[in-house]
């Protein structure tokens, strides 16, 4: 991605450098060539439609190449590949908290393997922050109350700056960290270092503890919709709309269950707003997503030992 952005940047530099040079040369040349001289008067010229059109149309066409190229890169930046490793991120004044799917937690330091797509699923506990890794040429604001997403594909092992790019209060400039890109095998070793449980498993336990499982059963008998295979699919709502079940949809359904009622169900679910932390919410989202990975539709892939509902 960095190479793509740099290529476009260099293209823009060259084109706008030429345009600036053209203007500079014209201004300097005219200023000198047509400086006031005795015996010569200015020649009046009203204008020229042909020239006006020329310097409207040509710049417009050049601008459209800037637009198209930039849009293509952005489209890619906004579309994380489906095979990405996922990292849940919670930003707060003034630190970055990361949680890997495997359950490792980090603060202000993010370890990722080289050569792998990494998708950041981010939210904030307080104000707006922004996840900015200059070396990867990516930036995404992190908002309270919803998820925003970005992704990257690091190729070279090393340590890179992580900055908060949205002004967030007193220690804004101290809300920094690093992204440590490791060789895959070093990464495996680092991963196996901690004894934590996978995020989806944490989510599954919460799912039981909070009683979600009593209504969201893996059959059609529950008072709430069966969540198996729902993630990433379109969902028909009671009011006739259809939405895609993404991270923000699952999040909203937990915090504001009445906002989007699935067709055929009643608004009976209580809200969990204020009762669970952002980290717990992330775990629940990760669990709901994990229900997709089992083609048989059994939500048992993350913890095969767990009893069937």
């Amino acid at each position, binding site marked *: 991605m960095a190479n793509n952005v740099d290529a476009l940047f260099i293209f823009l530099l060259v084109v706008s450098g030429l345009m600036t040079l053209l203007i500079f040369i014209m201004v300097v040349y005219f200023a000198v060539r047509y400086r006031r001289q005795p015996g010569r008067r200015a020649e009046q*010229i009203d204008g020229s439609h042909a020239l006006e059109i020329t310097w409207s149309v040509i710049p417009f066409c050049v601008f459209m190449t800037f637009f198209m190229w930039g849009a293509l890169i952005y489209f890619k930046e906004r579309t994380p590949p489906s095979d990405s490793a996922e990292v849940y991120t919670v930003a707060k004044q003034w630190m970055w908290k990361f949680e890997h799917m495997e359950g490792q937690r980090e603060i202000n330091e993010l370890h990722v393997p080289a050569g792998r797509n990494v998708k950041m699923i981010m939210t904030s506990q307080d104000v707006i922050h922004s996840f900015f890794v200059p070396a990867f040429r990516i*930036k995404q604001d992190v908002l309270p109350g*919803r998820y925003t997403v970005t992704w990257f594909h690091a190729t070279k092992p090393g340590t890179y700056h992580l900055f908060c790019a949205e*002004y967030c209060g007193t220690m*804004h400039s101290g809300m920094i960290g690093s992204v440590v890109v490791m060789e895959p095998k070093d990464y495996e070793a680092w991963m196996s270092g901690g004894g934590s449980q996978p995020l989806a498993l944490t989510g599954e336990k919460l799912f039981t503890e909070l009683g979600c499982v009593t209504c969201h059963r893996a059959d059609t008998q529950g008072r709430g919709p069966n969540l198996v295979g729902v993630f990433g699919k379109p969902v028909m709502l009671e009011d006739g709309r259809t939405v895609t079940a993404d991270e923000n949809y699952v999040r909203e359904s937990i915090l504001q269950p009445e906002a989007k009622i699935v067709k055929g169900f009643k608004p009976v679910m209580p809200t969990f707003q204020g009762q669970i932390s952002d980290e717990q919410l992330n775990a629940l989202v990760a669990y709901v997503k994990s229900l997709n990975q089992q083609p048989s539709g059994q939500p048992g892939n993350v913890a095969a030992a767990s009893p069937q509902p």
Partner: protein
Amino acid sequence: MATAVLETAERETYLNREYGIKSWLLTVDHKRIALLYLMGITFFFFIGGFFALLIRLELLTPAGDLVQADTYNKLFTMHGQIMVFFFLIPAVPAVLGNFLIPIMIGARDLAFPRINLLSWYIYMIGGVLMLITILNGGVDTGWTFYTPLSTEFLKTNVVTAALAVFVSGFSSILTGLNFIVTTHRMRAPGMTWNRLPLFVWAHYATSIIQVLGTPVVAIAIVLVALERTLHLGIFNPALGGDPLLFQHLFWFYSHPAVYIMILPGMGIISEIVCCFSRKRIFGYKAMAMALLGIAVVGFLVWAHHMFVAGISLYAALIFSLLSYFVAVPSAIKVFNWTSTMYKGSITYQTPMLYAFGFIGLFTMGGLTGLFLASLGIDVHVTDTYFVIAHFHYIMVGGMVMAYLGGMHFWWPKISGRMYPEGWGRLAALLVFVGFNLTFFPQFVLGYMGMPRRYWDYSHSPEFQILNVLSTAGATILAVGYLLPMIYFLWSMRYGKPAPDNPWNAAGLEWTIPSPPTTYNFDEQPVVTWEAYNYDEIKEEVPVAN
């Protein structure tokens, strides 16, 4: 009329008609009100500039060592709020526009002289509220007031700062309203729309933005104050609000506000380039339509400030595309100014030096705007020093250069005195060099990844050398700005008396005495010529010194 010079001492003018503080504070003369504004905006310009110098000094070293983090946050916040709301927005319209528009169209005054005075008082009330904010310990929201930081988390004087911005907005609305009505209703016989100086066209376009855009930011700012005091839950997601809603409302005004700041500057440059090239403007109609085009399309591009803020992919694509549309009329203007010089008879007085500077720096500011409008690039450079450099090239390199150029161009008319040409050229050169040294390195810093609003960058010592260059440039720039203030004041007493038309320029303002009388014209002027009729003016610009 050329003989009027000799009589300056005895002749009655708007300046010596009445004396005493009351004759100024209760005046309804647009020229006197312009001077009242001039004092206000000059005061705020130097306050805002002082904050900028402290910012630059802090960034001289990577560690946060000169001031505390909170102090630094207040400095950049108040620098931004003062410069945008109390200098850049009113500067050209309320000073030069106020002084010149009635004269340029052959009128005695603006359509609503009392409202004009009222708008100055409102501006001053806003200014006093801003000063109270500063003296009470300042505010650290960033000039953008982003929520929920501003509404729920900061402990500083957010409400008085919001009130200051809110109040000053009404001054801007009233000035805009006054200019629109004046341009429609007060033009002298023969002063058709196609004969208006582009300076008037530029202010007409600006006024439309002021009248239509300012209420929106006023609403947004009031909602911030209400949310902060009453916890309404409009912008704060914890209360069911949406923080992006604030950004939409804020930028719906604050992007067009960029054009409030730059369009009047474009008007000034058109006047100056024509005069010192002895030429009619190249493509008059295209220039006028480009001004209106920028004003209209400028309302449709606001979300390009939000490409990484969490707006949808397709919204981002549309706003990127529209942002390129607004670049086309800007390009037309640059090419037309340049072409106006073609086959001219050019002299290099101070105003023209500022015009050269404007064309170059505005071009660079505009072109780097195209980088930011390009989505793929914006993601990397937004909220970095690249953005800071870009908008300072437009605001300072463009607008402030134009403002200073205009002040030098019309100073003889305003004060009746000539400024010292040699000092003027020196100051113009210092401003140009100082400006580039200050802001060019910031483009590089931004691409290297230095985020804006960072008090401390000790984690990235590689940023230091460019910051040192930038701070060095800022000191040169400061000298460049102090000089004109000093010699303008000096010239009021010691400057050579100005002839009615020191530049042999076209335009009604040069047909009346310098300084003008209270009612501008002794007889109703009748216009029978096109704007910039330099072919009918036999004399060249007198060579100074």
